[in-house]
């Protein structure tokens, strides 16, 4: 093994057993990599001390107790909107700049129980509101693809989990957790050439994930291979007493297996081909469809008629839930407290104005407008009704006559935009464009995975998305792995 980006969990464990590598030496390599790639700005906090301690613990379990846990000695990054006990958790916002949680998010404690080692907390758009990882108080995250030192023509990482995607893409971590409300895990994974999974709503606990949109948020998983994503999912999925919205049935770990592709029916939803989609993306979509046809997979054109309004419906629901969720930040119990003592309301208003960036404040405003007594039915209830129609679109193609097992679509409309082009647009316009293909899955609560396929004309990754019905992760990930084998994507950037 020569390059960090070629390390998979299986290979690492094999090397541990053959003692070509040890957990402490591997974690050290990962930390070095993270420091060496610091100009990409993937991390808000590098947890050097924790990483070294976790590595030592893994080494002891491995060589003294002879007990190999599923993620033993595996380096991970966690998006900085998951609570980690005694490790600052900022949401990339001034509001939480000094916030140190006193408890762990369930997903993090499960990763630790599985033997994983924390390298650091990853950068994001403030409170995960964005699709570029450019709106962070710690500055934007840069995409390793096409990156040259001292060149201001760099590409964005996508978002809002851009730090997590870059941590994995650059080799600093084997896997990372993001969160996915409208595509925030799949979008940066797609632009950075790694695999990104949004699980079924309720399959993975949200306890300790600082909420954005409660009815759509899910923890997401990013890794370089489908198999590694699956290994992480197997460790974190399943019911959690601390999150009442987790599904109360046992989760059966997913096993990677050879599939008879001729028995799989894949739908191509025609509404996902929208204005603004680049030629590279369209051709990549056709390319994989052809590869699947060669495998005798049944390919069928299908229709999800409400797709084009989904983004506007999503935008209303997002802003309404944001307005409600952000009400908790008042500066009294935790978070930024302004220097005001005239009245409680004055303190609240000043703290919130100083603590939130414009994007957050404006979403709160719009959300409260839609929630006004006179607008509640007109916008909020209307959007929830349309949400049912969007969700029914999926039910119709996955059930009923002429049903398909999975859907194949692009993840993003283009490859990674240049930073200067991206910031010339407003946050809402950025999201309305970038989330077009990803947010419908959140509206319906269904699982979706983004897989890198090949490089665009500008030598940037182009990825496709597979979606399936609720709790179809087993089929979804096995078909994703098949596509991964067929396209054989290579991590060829300079990091």
């Amino acid at each position: 093994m020569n390059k960090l980006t070629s390390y998979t969990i299986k290979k690492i464990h094999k090397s541990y057993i053959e003692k070509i590598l040890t957990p402490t030496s591997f974690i050290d390599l990962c930390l070095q990599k993270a420091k060496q790639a610091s100009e990409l700005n993937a991390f808000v906090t590098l947890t050097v001390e924790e990483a070294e301690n976790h590595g030592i613990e893994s080494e002891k379990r491995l060589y003294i107790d002879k007990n190999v846990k599923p993620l033993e000695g595996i380096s991970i990054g966690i998006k900085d909107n998951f609570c980690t006990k005694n490790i600052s958790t900022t949401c990339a916002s001034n509001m939480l700049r000094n916030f140190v949680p006193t408890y762990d998010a369930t997903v993090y404690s499960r990763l630790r129980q599985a033997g994983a080692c924390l390298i650091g907390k990853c950068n994001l758009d403030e409170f995960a509101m964005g699709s570029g990882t450019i709106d962070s108080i710690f500055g934007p995250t840069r995409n390793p693809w096409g990156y040259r030192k001292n060149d201001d023509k760099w590409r964005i990482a996508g978002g809002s989990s851009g730090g997590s995607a870059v941590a994995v893409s650059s080799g600093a971590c084997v896997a990372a957790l993001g969160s996915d409300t409208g595509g925030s895990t799949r979008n940066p994974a797609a632009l950075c050439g790694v695999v990104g999974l949004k699980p079924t709503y309720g399959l993975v606990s949200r306890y300790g994930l600082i909420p954005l949109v409660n009815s759509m948020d899910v923890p997401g998983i990013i890794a370089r291979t489908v198999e590694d994503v699956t290994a992480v999912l197997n460790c974190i999925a399943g019911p959690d007493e601390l999150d009442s919205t987790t599904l109360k049935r046992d989760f059966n770990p997913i096993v990677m297996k050879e599939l008879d592709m001729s028995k799989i029916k894949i739908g191509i939803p025609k509404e996902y081909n929208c204005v603004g989609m680049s030629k590279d993306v369209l051709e990549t979509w056709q390319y994989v469809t052809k590869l699947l046809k060669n495998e005798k997979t049944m390919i069928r054109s299908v229709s999800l008629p409400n797709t084009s309004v989904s983004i506007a419906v999503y935008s209303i629901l997002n802003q309404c839930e944001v307005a409600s969720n952000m009400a908790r930040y008042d500066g009294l119990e935790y978070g930024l407290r302004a220097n005001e003592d005239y009245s409680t309301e004055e303190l609240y208003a000043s703290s919130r104005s100083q603590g939130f960036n414009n994007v957050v404040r404006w979403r709160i405003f719009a959300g409260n407008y839609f929630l006004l007594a006179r607008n509640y039915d007109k916008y909020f209830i209307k959007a929830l009704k349309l949400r049912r129609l969007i969700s029914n679109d999926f039910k119709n193609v996955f059930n009923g006559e002429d049903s398909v097992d999975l859907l194949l679509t692009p993840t993003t409309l283009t490859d990674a935009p240049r930073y200067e082009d991206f910031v010339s647009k407003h946050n809402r316009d950025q999201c309305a464009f970038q989330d077009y293909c990803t947010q419908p899955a959140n509206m319906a609560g269904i699982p979706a995975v983004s897989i890198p396929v090949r490089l665009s004309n500008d030598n940037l990754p182009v990825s496709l998305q597979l979606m399936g019905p609720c709790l179809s992760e087993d089929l979804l990930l096995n078909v994703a792995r098949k596509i991964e084998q067929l396209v054989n994507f290579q991590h060829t950037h300079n990091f």
Partner: protein
Amino acid sequence: MNYISTIISYNKLQIIKSAVRNLCLKNLSTRQAQPIDHKEENVRVDKNTLALLERLSLVKCDSTEGLTVLEDSIAFANKILHINTDNVDPLYSVLENENVYLRNDVVTQGDCQKDILKNAVLKEDDYFVAPPGNIPLQEIQIDKKEQETKS
């Protein structure tokens, strides 16, 4: 109620399906879905509404840009209003058909006063500290303006 709308959308689906069944992917490039355009309509939010939103949000909208963004968000949202949703129930949660249970009403956590107070900037003994309440925000802003004009 849903039954009817399901039948209608199902029938529509069948028509579309039979129309596109034999289309190959190449045709996709000529039939692109149009993302909704949101720039046509002019929406105005009056001063009273803005003041109300500021009070409800407890955030100051101290720029004209903020107002423009709000009006633009409303214009974008208005694009869904014409769609027929008669006899469709709102979808509040995708877990509506799941049995999401309630836990027993027993104490499972406690003795964490230190933890809870740990992240507060100001505290006195074992309490959070807040300035005087019951003074609405608008009043303060008017007071301040008066003071400014006096001085």
